[in-house]
């Protein structure tokens, strides 16, 4: 039984060092999953403290516990429905007022709260004097000083958590809203009390307060209750707008009554962050600095990744050779050597690339710079019908579209988010690079670098024009106004950077282990059947499928082999290269593949350029399709993404082929 296990939830505003505390408590014993029903990440971890097992859940960072964003609903539902034994509220010591607002909400929820006064070193450094004793007395909540980045105060925090969890009686905290509002709360509370089921599950005062604030999610909780109609009648009579902000003000009033007695000299001063911001967000310097940083990040990615990639490439080539020479029977050797190692191996080569790019982005994010980049790009993004917040997912798309699309959940407006999701697959992910490298290398000689680069540009142009198109036709309107906190600059730590990198990069690994493995086996089967046919020859099933598809892609200058490669590329775009290896009879050996491509009269510079463009634009890979479906919650939009991608890819390749032909490059 899990009787002896204590469940703890970490709550707090964004950018207060919640993740750092979480990492400090749980170390490597973490598990990343999804919240039920939504794809927001749910991180939990274990810790044994003084012989007692503690299970820690990291709630999404929120300013409040209303229903403004998905994150807030998740955090709230967890506390209300799953009733953790203790909620640790992580408070930024340098910004008590806004942080304590969330405390008032947690108090109203009736949770047992322990405050971790985090970043207390920064508060000390700027001369704030916080009286912990008085703070505890006023709030009736234990307060522990912590410095997450130095793992300071963690043991004391856990001691307090255990103490709090063992306390049987729980004192209910209340915020007085005064006169009229209190009367309304009482009335609602009385009526709600008639429903025993509700009374057991939720604190009635909290329900009443939320109903007065016009909280839609809480209204849903009443559905089917015997008191639903009576409550509705009362609410309909009321001017809820009046209450909404009045209650927020009351909470701040309560905080401001306490603050001056707890904290002296807690005022803002000009910080180093302000000075850095003056340069980095400067009217003239902002964009050049941003471009230079991005260029640097990509340059470093490729430089660092190359030796690792060479090593992986070498290892797999050796392994494939070893298998095909030493394994019996021949079909098994072919399945493992040609099929699995050839297919999956090719994908794994690009892991260093993707991981290092994600590491760079994580470091930039943790330093606080990415939020500034969103500000710098806001005006440009507005022109294409989006705003700054859409920019970070687009940047991540260069690594892998799956985590990039998941990152769009920070965008509150539904249409803004949908557009950002739909254009994301056009950001050329790491998986498409091998296709460019192979083809550009085989057909463009010295110009190969330029050609590869132009594919990235083409992707961005397609994304921008598509966003503009969607905004003016399907999803009319202006981007929703956006507000985003700019956290103070901090020196990122390698540890958090690596943890972040792993969270995002591992999605790619998972894909390699599942979808691509399956894809590789299917490709191998289709290329080997019917039995006895030469591997990947025209008479194999793959060949037959290719011939059926050939008329569709003939206007683009593609033959049956390319048709098959593109078909298999649906599973994952890297497979385009792997299956070309099979179909051109070159296997895993890239030099051999380059040679046989050059010797094949049916593929030449012009249509290989079209093929690169096609690979870039046509339907997102299977894993991306899956994540689009999950995040949009709609098959209609998923299907739209697929059809739009294929249609556009066909059109652009056709244009490249025809225009190039007219210009005499055929």
């Amino acid at each position, binding site marked *: 039984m899990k009787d002896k296990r204590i469940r703890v939830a970490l709550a707090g505003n964004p950018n207060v060092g919640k993740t750092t505390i979480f990492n400090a408590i749980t170390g490597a014993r973490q598990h990343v999953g999804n919240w039920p029903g939504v794809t927001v990440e749910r991180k939990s971890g274990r810790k044994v403290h003084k012989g007692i097992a503690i299970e820690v859940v990291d709630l999404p960072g929120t*300013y*409040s516990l*209303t229903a*403004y964003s998905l994150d807030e609903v998740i955090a709230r539902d967890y506390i209300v429905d799953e009733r953790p034994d203790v909620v640790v509220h992580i408070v930024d010591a*340098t*910004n008590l*007022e*806004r942080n304590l*607002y969330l405390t008032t909400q947690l108090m109203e929820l009736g949770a047992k709260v322990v405050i971790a006064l985090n970043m207390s070193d920064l508060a000390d450094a700027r001369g704030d004097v916080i009286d912990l004793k008085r703070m505890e007395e006023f709030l009736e909540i234990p307060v522990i000083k912590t410095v997450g980045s130095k793992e300071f105060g963690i043991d004391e925090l856990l001691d307090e958590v255990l103490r709090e969890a063992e306390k049987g009686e729980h004192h209910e905290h209340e915020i007085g809203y005064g006169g009229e509002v209190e009367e309304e709360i009482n009335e609602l509370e009385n009526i709600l009390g008639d429903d025993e089921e509700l009374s057991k599950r939720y604190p009635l005062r909290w329900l009443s307060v939320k109903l007065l*604030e*016009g909280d839609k999610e809480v209204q849903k909780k009443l559905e089917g209750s015997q008191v639903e109609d009576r409550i509705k009648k009362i609410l309909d009579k009321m001017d*809820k*707008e009046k209450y*909404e*902000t009045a209650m*927020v*003000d009351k909470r*701040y009033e309560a905080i401001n009554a306490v603050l001056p007695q707890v904290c002296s000299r807690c*005022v*803002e001063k000009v910080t180093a*962050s*302000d000075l850095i*911001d003056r340069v980095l*967000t400067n*009217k003239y310097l902002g964009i050049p600095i941003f471009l230079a940083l991005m260029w640097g990040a990509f340059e470093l990615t490729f430089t660092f990744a190359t030796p690792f990639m060479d090593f992986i490439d070498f290892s797999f080539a050796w392994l494939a050779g070893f298998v095909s020479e030493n394994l019996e029977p021949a079909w098994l050797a072919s399945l493992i050597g040609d099929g699995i190692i050839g297919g999956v191996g090719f994908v794994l080569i690009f892991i260093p690339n993707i991981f290092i790019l994600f590491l760079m982005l994580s470091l930039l994010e943790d330093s606080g710079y990415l*939020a*500034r980049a*969103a*500000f710098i790009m*806001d*005006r440009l993004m*507005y022109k294409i019908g989006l*705003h*700054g917040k859409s920019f970070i997912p687009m940047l991540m798309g260069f690594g892998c579209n799956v985590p990039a699309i998941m990152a769009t959940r920070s965008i509150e407006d539904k249409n803004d988010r949908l557009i950002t999701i739909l254009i994301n697959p056009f950001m050329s992910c790491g998986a498409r690079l091998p296709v460019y490298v192979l083809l550009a290398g085989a057909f463009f000689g010295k110009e190969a670098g330029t050609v590869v680069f132009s594919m990235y540009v083409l992707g961005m142009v397609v994304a921008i024009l598509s966003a503009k198109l969607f905004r003016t036709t399907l999803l009319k309107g*202006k*981007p*929703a*106004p*956006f*507000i*985003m*906190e*700019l956290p*103070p600059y901090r020196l990122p730590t390698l540890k958090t950077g690596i943890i972040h990198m792993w969270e995002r990069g591992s999605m790619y690994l998972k894909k390699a282990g599942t979808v691509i493995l399956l894809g590789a086996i299917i490709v191998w089967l289709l290329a080997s059947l019917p039995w006895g046919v030469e591997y990947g020859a025209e008479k194999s099933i793959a060949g037959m499928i290719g011939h059926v598809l050939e008329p569709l892609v003939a206007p683009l200058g593609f033959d049956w082999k390319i048709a098959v490669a593109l078909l298999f590329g649906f599973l994952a775009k890297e497979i385009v290269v792997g299956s070309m290896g099979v179909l051109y009879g070159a296997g895993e050996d890239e030099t051999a593949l380059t040679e046989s491509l050059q010797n094949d009269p049916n593929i030449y510079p012009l249509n290989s350029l079209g093929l690169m463009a096609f690979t870039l634009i046509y339907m997102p890979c299977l894993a991306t399709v899956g994540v689009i479906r999950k995040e949009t919650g709609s098959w209609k939009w998923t299907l739209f993404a697929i059809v739009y991608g294929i249609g556009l890819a066909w059109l652009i390749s056709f244009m490249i082929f025809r225009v190039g032909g007219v210009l005499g490059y055929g």
Partner: protein
Amino acid sequence: MCKVMPLIMVPEGKECRISDIHGGRGLTRHLTEMGFTYHAPVKVLRSEKGSLIVAVNGCKYALSKGIAMKIMVGEC
């Protein structure tokens, strides 16, 4: 004292106090919860054709034109 105006019209480097927020219901509350409370001092750090960086309560926020139009300030 000066007249009430939207935050977007406040020049860089100036500090004003929030007098009202004309947001929809959800937005007004969200802003208030982020610290944009009545009478809170707000300083405009950067103003670039509608995109602003402001400091409220020692926290910095980037906000777009749409929001900057809805926040009314006075007492510059």
